[in-house]
């Protein structure tokens, strides 16, 4: 029963930590090659949900498939996805090519193929001159672009980006998003969480999580129209304003 163009499919996914329900029966589909924005305030449960999809955490209940594999089969999922964490995810003490070779080795790519793809990748992002640079000597913008390029180096079907642009200036963020769009055009599904609402506008579709549930899911245009807002920022404020969790925490 392969649908072919469905990349992620989730039904009633739930994650509880004790009595706290971090993710509450969420359902959604993501199409192949889609840039899917996964928004929500801090503590809304988006990181937890994303960790389940990446095979880093097991759901309490619910079902789904990621890149054609059941979410219970973390091993197979991990082979088919790329992941870029919230924190910067390359090794600062290694050179650029050493980082690439490390991740290529982890995914079992041969040395010859690695060398070929490395040159091609550095050429594409315009960083051929920095192959031998230590990562810690690079500006944050380059680090982030390299981290993304490394995350998709093994040609995953889906790449998960957990707040990839935190602490980066707007110009660099824009360049970073150009890379994301390129990847999407090549057929890579991009699943991205972000705090920046201007970035939400770049996504093909956006879901907004509030208190562990998905409150809204549509294209940015449709969401703006539905909530009669001028920007995604306004949409987000209206929805996130309903959150009860933070107030409960304060009590």
């Amino acid at each position: 029963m392969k649908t072919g163009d469905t990349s992620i499919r989730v039904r009633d996914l739930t994650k509880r930590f004790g009595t706290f329900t971090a993710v509450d029966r969420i359902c959604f589909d993501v199409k192949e090659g889609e840039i899917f924005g996964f928004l929500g305030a801090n503590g809304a449960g988006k990181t937890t949900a994303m960790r389940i999809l990446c095979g880093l955490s097991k759901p309490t209940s619910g079902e789904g498939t990621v890149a054609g594999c059941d979410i219970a089969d973390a091993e197979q999922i991990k082979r088919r996805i790329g992941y870029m964490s919230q924190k910067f995810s390359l090794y600062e003490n290694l050179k650029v090519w050493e980082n690439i070779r490390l991740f290529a080795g982890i995914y079992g790519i041969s040395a010859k193929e690695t060398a070929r793809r490395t040159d091609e990748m550095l050429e594409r992002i315009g960083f051929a001159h920095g192959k031998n640079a230590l990562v810690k000597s690079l500006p944050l913008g380059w680090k982030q672009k390299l981290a993304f390029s490394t995350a998709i180096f093994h040609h995953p079907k889906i790449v998960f980006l957990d707040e990839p642009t935190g602490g980066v200036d707007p110009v660099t963020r824009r360049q970073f998003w150009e890379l994301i769009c390129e990847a999407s055009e090549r057929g890579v599904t991009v699943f991205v969480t972000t705090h920046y609402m201007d970035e939400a506008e770049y996504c093909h579709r956006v879901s907004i999580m509030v208190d562990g549930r998905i409150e809204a899911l549509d294209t940015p245009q449709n969401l703006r129209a539905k909530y009669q807002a001028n920007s995604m920022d306004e949409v987000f404020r209206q929805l996130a304003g309903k959150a009860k969790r933070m107030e409960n925490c304060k009590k």
Partner: protein
Amino acid sequence: MKNNSPFSVHRNSPFIALAGKEFRHIFRDVRTILLLLVMPAAQIILFGFAVTTEIKETPIAVFDPSKNVSTARLIKRIDASEYFRVEQMLHHPDEITGVFGEGKIRLALVFGDGFGGSPALDGRASLQIVADATDPNQAGTLTQYLSAVIGDEYRSQLPAADAPPSIVPVVKMLYNPEMKSVYNFVPGVMGLIFLLICAMMTSISIVRERETGTMEVLLASPVKPSLIIAAKAVPYLALSAVNYCTVLLLSVLVLGVPVAGSLALLTVASSLYIVVSLLLGLFISTVVRTQKAAMIASGMGLMIPVMLLSGLIFPVANMPVALQWLSSVVPARWYIRAMRGIMIEGLPLTAVRLEIAVLCAMGVVLLVVSLKKFKVRLE
């Protein structure tokens, strides 16, 4: 889970890639590598030559108002012994405080007025030993040694027939006849070094990956967590092996400490301890969150107990019972005991089986607990 045989290491090379990364991390930082390779050698040399608790050529001062044959003989004998050297002859008892103050001497010997003739004849000979007790342990040892030398002299003056029926214990120092403290330090320093390299470095390097977020990326890759940890251990194992050879060679060639027992057994015991140290590092990394905490936990939680409780400095047998119990959870205590047994006393495996068994048990417990904790962390 299914098609992941342990031989996947050979099929594709994630293990080699990860271990290579670990090596590069260590070798890129020249200071770290110097610290890890030079420090053990320096420690052995330092402990061997500088920090000695043995008594050798201790400078003493003598006040001898009577200046007769008997006192001269005694002084000569003391000076001739390998333990003492008469640094200064005093002219007045008041000078004693002065010479101690200058730090020239550790001990002063004061003859009583009219000390002379044969003490056996008039039965009265008074003699005072003044010691610098800023280091009470050493002061005690020094006075004991000096009393022994004086006792020897006293007995030798008596004609054999007149000897009073006194009990004279004949002390024989086994295994370490010269009472060289370096014999004790070599196993101790090994215990410290392996702990430092394996436990401290491993815990810091795992926690660092968690702090920087790279651990998360590795875990999101198809590599198994156990493989990530194993790859991390490889460079520290290699460094430990190098250090094991350095320390052993230095002790044998430079310090003259013999390897009395089986070298193979020594190596097995050390490998076991190295593995236990690695597991300790893994365990620490599962309970702390930051690199600083890892450093403090391995520093305070491991190094200090090793220094104080393992028998490296203070003999376990002299500790209060509560501390002896506490010391039995310190792996280094068992390792150092086994090392002393094998290396210095030349004991076979059967004699150190308890120590080996305890280390094995500790390793298993640490492995089980760490794996459990590591998994929980992932959830």
